[in-house]
């Protein structure tokens, strides 16, 4: 199979412009008869399907949700980056590119990242034109805020619901194409296999989730915008139904899985409160603009807080350790996510955690409330305002910025964060790893493309905040609709693909076989219980820190769990019916295979970089120790089931424009 990054020649800043101007095109008369399957309707899938429809292709779009608008992009809170430099603070395309490469700990492809930074500006324009109600200043222009790992203000936002507003923009564009008939929408359909004919991706097998029927869908090519696989950890900030099955089925048909062990643990989530917990809730990174992270300096105070004898407000200023400000003075509370998460773990490992479980640190808004209050009093010309007045004014400013997040926190925990600091702890949030793609966003299977979180391409070993929305929409609106032409321009003589070939027969039989196999186990344990156990293994051995012994042990544990699953899982109901338990079973079965590959990948990478922290490789100060000489490559894995050892293909990363440096936020 081809394994070329296909990066076009030319200087970094001109590659994309030159390439775009010389790419092969498909004429309108041919577009009308070329069919494209898009799986997933998040930011990447919806924007791609809408744009391809606008261009005149015949698009079939699939989601397992009841509506395209439910995709998990909807839950993104904080914002979207763009190198607009509206704040005149020295931002530029190059700086966004550089921040992303550095933030990713030098494990992403320069050319893809630069292109992302270039088109970031178009995304904002496009979203504004769709009527997305971004936050604005009094002068009527777009407002910005800062995110972690960055020293400029380039994040555009719509209160704490930026993902919702951008997804609705894409959903509405998609809806317009559905009404025009250029996109045919299939809600409640889950892709369960990829069909390859003569080496090219030509269709999918989907299960109609209402009737349980298997359906064949054929097209000239297939685009996956199916999101990440964070739910392999069971507890994550992902939506309950987010899963890796569509992408994993492509892997089982020969697509390479790249850097699967690169997962992002987000530092500010609401801590787990009990064993029944079904998911974790993120508190936007934007809160670190104004919130200060701390733990008590001594273990006695921490213990007293854990046992309910003291509260945060009982700890005087000099007894608090604002550890991010202390350890990383240059970036303070706005260090990147991997750094902030690890620091929280270190604090809790030292016995300084502040929740009954010992796993939480404070995120405190007291300073911000008072600072904003004083400034507001000044603006309003209030002389000698009382402390209560300052607090009241400051509270209203904080409320305007983060009101919905504070409300959500209070709903979940029952605590009022205006009065007492939030308690937060890291949780799995995003997966940088994903299907391997070349510069055209094409996988190693010709005609199979992957966009958004489902590919690996832009974030290296750690993603910066507010860059997921940027990448999803960049891929869907501004990259894939062009690059897909490189493949499709060679397909203009290919007649309509009919789903009747042997390849379709075989794929459907395989899916049917898997469904029968699962239904026939008729054991005693629920799917959910296996998922929980898998998640625990993943979190304990492939979470915030990893080591060789643990990874080897965990690999064995996953295999044992798999054996137990295939002999004792119980799925109620019928396969030929609406059956959420069967859907879950399929996904968990795939997660076990993926989980094993993550262990293998983490074990192969004998270095620490970004979210991948191997305990054996750290500096004396406990920072990640990268090994550029031996590991400056993308790990692209071929996986062929439990019986065969995964095979590693390496894409060496070439850095022509940035110098590989130790990543420091000190």
């Amino acid at each position: 199979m081809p394994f070329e990054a296909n990066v076009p020649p030319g200087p970094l800043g001109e590659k994309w412009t030159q390439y775009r101007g010389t790419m092969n095109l498909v004429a309108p008369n041919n577009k009308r008869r070329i069919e494209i399957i898009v799986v997933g309707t998040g930011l990447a899938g919806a924007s791609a399907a809408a744009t391809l429809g606008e261009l005149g292709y015949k698009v079939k779009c699939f989601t397992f949700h009841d509506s395209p608008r439910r995709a998990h992009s909807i839950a993104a809170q904080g914002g979207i980056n763009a190198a607009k430099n509206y704040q005149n603070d020295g931002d530029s395309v190059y700086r966004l590119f550089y921040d992303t490469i550095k933030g990713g700990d030098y494990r992403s492809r320069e050319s893809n990242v630069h292109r992302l930074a270039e088109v970031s500006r178009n995304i904002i324009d496009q979203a504004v034109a769709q009527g997305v109600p971004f936050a604005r200043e009094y002068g009527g222009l777009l407002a910005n805020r800062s995110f972690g790992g960055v020293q400029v203000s380039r994040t555009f936002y719509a209160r704490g619901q930026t993902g919702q507003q951008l997804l609705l923009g894409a959903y509405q564009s998609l809806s317009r194409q559905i009404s025009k008939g250029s996109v045919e929408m299939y809600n409640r359909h889950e892709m369960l296999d990829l069909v390859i004919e003569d080496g090219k991706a030509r269709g999918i097998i989907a299960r109609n989730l209402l009737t349980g029927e298997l359906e064949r869908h054929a097209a000239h090519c297939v685009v996956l915008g199916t999101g990440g696989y964070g739910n392999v950890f069971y507890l994550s900030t992902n939506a309950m139904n987010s899963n890796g099955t569509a992408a994993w089925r492509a892997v089982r048909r020969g697509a390479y899985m790249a850097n699967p062990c690169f997962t992002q643990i987000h530092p500010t989530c609401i801590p787990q409160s009990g064993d029944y917990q079904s998911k974790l809730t993120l508190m936007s990174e934007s809160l670190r603009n104004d919130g200060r992270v701390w733990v008590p300096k001594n273990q006695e105070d921490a213990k007293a807080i854990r046992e309910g004898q003291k509260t945060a407000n009982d700890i005087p200023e000099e007894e608090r350790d604002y550890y991010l400000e202390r350890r990383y003075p240059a970036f303070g509370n706005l260090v990147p996510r991997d750094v902030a998460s690890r620091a929280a773990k270190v604090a809790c490992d030292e016995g300084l955690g502040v929740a009954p479980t010992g796993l939480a640190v404070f995120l405190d808004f007291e300073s911000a409330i008072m600072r904003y209050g004083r400034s507001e009093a000044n603006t309003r010309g209030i002389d000698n305002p009382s402390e209560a007045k300052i607090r009241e004014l400051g509270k209203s400013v904080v409320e305007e910025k983060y009101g919905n997040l504070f409300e959500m926190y209070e709903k979940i925990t029952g605590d009022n964060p205006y009065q007492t600091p939030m308690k937060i702890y890291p949780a799995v949030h995003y997966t940088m790893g994903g299907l391997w793609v070349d510069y055209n966003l094409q996988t190693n299977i010709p005609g199979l493309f992957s966009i958004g979180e489902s590919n690996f391409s832009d974030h290296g070993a750690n993603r910066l905040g507010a860059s997921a929305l940027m990448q999803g929409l960049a891929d869907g609106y501004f990259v894939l609709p062009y690059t897909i032409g490189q493949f499709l321009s060679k397909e203009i003589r290919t007649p309509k693909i009919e789903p009747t070939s042997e390849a379709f027969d075989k794929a459907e039989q395989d899916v049917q076989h898997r469904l029968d196999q699962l239904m026939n186990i008729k054991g005693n344990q629920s799917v959910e219980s296996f998922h929980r156990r898998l998640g625990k293994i993943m979190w304990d051995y492939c979470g915030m820190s990893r080591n060789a012994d643990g990874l080897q042990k965990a690999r064995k544990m996953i295999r044992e769990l798999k054996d137990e699953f295939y002999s004792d899982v119980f799925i109620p109901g019928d396969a030929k019916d609406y059956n959420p338990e069967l859907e879950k079973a399929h996904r968990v079965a795939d997660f076990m295979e993926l989980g094993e590959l993550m262990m293998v990948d983490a074990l192969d990478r004998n270095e620490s970089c970004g979210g991948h922290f191997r305990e054996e490789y750290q500096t004396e100060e406990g920072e990640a120790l990268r090994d550029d000489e031996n590991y400056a490559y993308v790990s692209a894995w071929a996986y062929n089931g439990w019986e065969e050892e995964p095979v590693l293909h390496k894409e060496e990363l070439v850095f022509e424009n940035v110098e590989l440096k130790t990543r420091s936020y000190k």
Partner: protein
Amino acid sequence: MKLTLKIWRQKNANTKGRFETYQAEASPDMSFLEMLDVLNEDLISQKQEPVAFEHDCREGICGTCNMVINGEPHGPMQGTTTCQLHMRHFNDGDTIVIEPFRASAFPVIKDLAIDRDSFDRIIQAGGYVSINTGQAQDGNAIPIEKETAAEAFDAASCIGCGACVAACPNASAMLFVSAKVSHLAHMPQGKVEAKRRAQAMVNQMDEEGFGRCSNITACEAECPKEISVEHIARLNREYLSSSVGSQVKA
């Protein structure tokens, strides 16, 4: 805490449903859906079919979860979706009645799961700005008053759950439709086709079998995003002025 649950069970759209009674245990820190998770795990362990209910983000933003709890869509807490409702708002020994959102335009799929495709079709009828990718001018080319953008945002925060329909004795979708019409009419980019949009979306709403609005405003009271009925007034304005002008085809 110990609870008695009366839950609507219905095999599919074509069979009659009924309430079944279950005993459940919960802790006050659980979310309402986690309480149902525990019940379902229990049912599965007894080889019984779990209660079908739909949910996804469990953060109150995707709009998937839909239950009428003790007669109120999304339960007793104001501005709260079912997934964000926590058991600390109930008491030990409570009996809780759980049923799906009911409306002829939202047929039951199974138990508490319903079909809301009609909402998608209403958006497809005109709930968008007609521009293609790549046609946009610079994002800061048109200044928009901060308050206006904020009002547009308030309307745009609709999650498409359908609680407004479930709350309305007429099963009207006016709050849902008006939120989108008002969001886009507030923005200069959406203003251009505001009249056409209002007419097309209202026509589609009628076609889907939603009822008429008779200003009861139960929708506003039950909306988990607290969207104001003022948007309905805005919709009426756009709709009336479009009816006075020339008719446009949806």
